[in-house]
């Protein structure tokens, strides 16, 4: 018999798609690196340390759990990604025990206790972040300004999103979120002024409108906030790569963004007295954790529905709850809770999936 060495006698199919679970998680982590780098640039070593300790704790937790069953599961990248996402959502200068505890909670309680990768029913990273917000509400709400606009007085201890929700701010009439920030002394970078002027001269005055200053800083992330959530542009760029390579499905982010934008546009202007259909959509999308959660956490396949109708309800639900929490809740960073609530509903959403053609309803007799 002529044999060839090292041949695999596997079951059909004999070829596989290049995408694997580990390549997906590692790829997502890689896509997050630019956004994290921006956060570290803004806040320095403290932000790097928070991210590193969250990742470290998540990996050690995963190793420990794997050791119990004598399996090495660090390679699938899921624990690394969870730790990375938790670290990115921590405020700068956070005491390091918070990211460590959050990561351990995410890996040990939320993931491992329910059966590990694929069996958890809440997104571990979001559960970890929610755990931190609920356990250390004060420490999780200490903000500083990034290096480029440091020194500005007035609202340095808060985030733009948090600031515009304060009662005093909400009482203001005839303005919009950015005006409010400006009147409170929130300073925008020199680059923002130059770019805004340039764009206005080049484009906006010609079409008879005017771009207010501040949006550029908002988009690139020159504002106070969690290091990983600062730069909406970098997160968006990463998301486009993920979508283009079909690493995440487009339905969930699309539904979240569409419903949330619509709600903001219709009702977002009410607190400013400018009436319906005047909300500042751009401001809402690019503040807080919105983009990071929408593209990197709400899309987690394990904890999201797998049918299109389920995704629609799931995405819409997240958008509605997020909008409600941001408008009426006690926390501006309420999006984590919105996703966790919808996570709980996923089994229900998937249950609704009817047997498709070819399958027969459960219990039905074959005729």
């Amino acid at each position, binding site marked *: *018999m*002529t*044999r*060839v*060495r*090292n*041949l*695999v*006698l*596997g*079951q*059909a*199919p*004999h*070829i*596989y*798609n*290049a*995408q*694997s*679970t*580990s*390549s*997906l998680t590692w790829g997502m982590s890689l896509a997050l690196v630019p956004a994290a780098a921006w956060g570290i640039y803004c806040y320095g070593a403290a932000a790097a340390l928070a991210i590193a300790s969250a990742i470290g704790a998540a990996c050690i937790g995963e190793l420990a759990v794997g050791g119990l069953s004598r399996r090495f599961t660090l*390679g*699938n990248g899921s624990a690394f990604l969870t730790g990375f996402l938790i670290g990115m959502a921590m405020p700068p200068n956070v005491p390091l025990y918070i990211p460590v505890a959050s990561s351990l909670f995410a890996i040990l309680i939320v993931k491992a206790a329910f059966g*590990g*990768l*694929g*069996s958890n029913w809440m997104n571990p990273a979001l559960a970890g972040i929610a755990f931190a917000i609920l356990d250390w509400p004060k420490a999780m709400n200490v903000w500083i300004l990034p290096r480029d606009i440091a020194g500005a007085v007035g609202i340095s201890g808060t985030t733009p999103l948090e600031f515009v929700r304060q009662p005093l701010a909400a009482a203001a009439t005839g303005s919009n979120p950015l005006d409010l920030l400006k009147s409170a002394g929130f300073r925008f970078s020199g680059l923002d002024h130059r770019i805004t002027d340039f764009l206005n001269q080049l484009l906006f005055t010609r079409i008879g409108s005017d771009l207010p200053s501040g949006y550029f800083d908002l988009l690139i992330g020159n504002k106070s906030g969690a290091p990983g959530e600062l730069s909406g542009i970098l997160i968006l760029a990463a998301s486009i790569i993920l979508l283009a390579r079909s690493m995440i*499905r487009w339905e969930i982010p699309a539904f979240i963004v569409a419903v949330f934008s619509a709600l903001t546009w219709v009702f977002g202007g009410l607190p400013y007295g400018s009436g319906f259909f005047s909300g500042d959509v751009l401001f809402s999308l690019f503040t807080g954790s919105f983009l990071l959660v929408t593209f990197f956490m709400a899309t987690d*396949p*394990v904890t999201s529905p*797998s*049918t299109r109708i389920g995704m629609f309800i799931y995405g819409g639900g997240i958008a509605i709850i997020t909008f409600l929490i941001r408008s009426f809740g006690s926390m501006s960073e309420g999006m984590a809770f919105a996703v966790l609530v919808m996570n709980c509903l996923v089994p229900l959403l998937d249950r609704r*999936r009817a*047997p*498709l*053609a*070819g*399958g*027969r*309803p*459960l*219990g*039905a007799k074959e005729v």
Partner: protein
Amino acid sequence: MSSIRTFERGGIRVRGDGEQEEPVSIANAFLPNSAVVLLKQHAGAPARCVVRRGEYVREGMIVGRGLGPGSADVHAPVPGVVRDIRVVLLPEGGESEAVVIALEGSFDRLGRRAERYVWNSMGRADLLRTVRDRGVVDTEAPGVPLYDLLADRESTDALILNAVESEPYLRTESSLLKERAEQASDGLAILAKLTEPARIVVAVDERCDEASLRPWAGDARIEIVRFEARYPQDMRNQMLESILGARKRSNSSVLVVRPSTAVALHEAIVLAKPVMERYVTVGGGAIKRPAVLKVRIGTPIGDLIEECGGFLGPPARIVLGGPFRGFPVHDLDAPVTKTSSAVLALSEDEVGSAHRNPCIRCGRCASVCPEKLDPERLFRLLSHRRVAEAESWGLKDCTLCGACGYICPSRVQLVAAFAVRLRSGISKAMEARP
């Protein structure tokens, strides 16, 4: 005619393999020094051996007599001496007796000008008997004898010549259409005479050029239908649905044949040759010079790989048949049979193996299933031994095409789990269990 048809839902376009799938010119393979002729090269019972060890057999002489429906006669592909009659393992599982013929003596047909029989004047019964005696089977696994497909047929709504490659990497059928179009056309004409179909359809790939269709140009009786090159485009249900419509597909009487079957029929009737050869794609990233070869049955696949320049790098898998439904082999002495459409040597890169992980419920499997099943749910039910429930979710509609297995990022062994249930009769026994 110009529109390209496809199926409703699911399916896969395999990553960049365009060059490997262009039709190519067909070369004749070398004769094997020793041919291993399986007595089971068809769907039914193995043929009964009618030669003895040490006997001299002439080219095309019968060595195995088919036993009833599903079984077909087997002929000597080369002249020579029967060295051995032994039992060999089949790649698809199970075993079969095989007649080993050492090449010797002179050829009765090779190198001589073939006589052409005028089949138009032959009657139906004569034609059918000839088809049976020459051992013609459907060239797709499992190899149903053509006689069985034709004999009991009362009426035929459609006769389909299916030149859409059944799987990526394969290019036997498109190459045959390109190079042997007249023979395929003859074969189709014979089938049309035998079945008197209401419609005759030639189904081809979207990339098929006009030259391949020249025998049918201007023939009003024959419809040319183009299909998108998306796996599993050749699947019977999906193809019939787009040709006949969804409602008609189940209660129509349709005969689907491959160009390779039509060519074999042409040789059996017009050239009066029993099935001694077949066309085989030798391909995959680990093969130096991929090709389509005309091969004597019983040739070891190792000879074919050598003839194509050998291995480019170490192959990760060698597959008899297509990458989705073929059978893995590790023995390069495994012989070519009447249903071996391809020999593929796949590189590590192409196999794309990865660590197995738990299911992450991403839903990709359901989105590629051409039968609209939910493989994730079926797998979960089966792993809890809830077989009856899995069947109520359509397990029996699974065709084992392998699309779900291909796409699964966690490499969950979906196809293996379904194959175990579908290929064996233990599903009933499991149901009876409390």
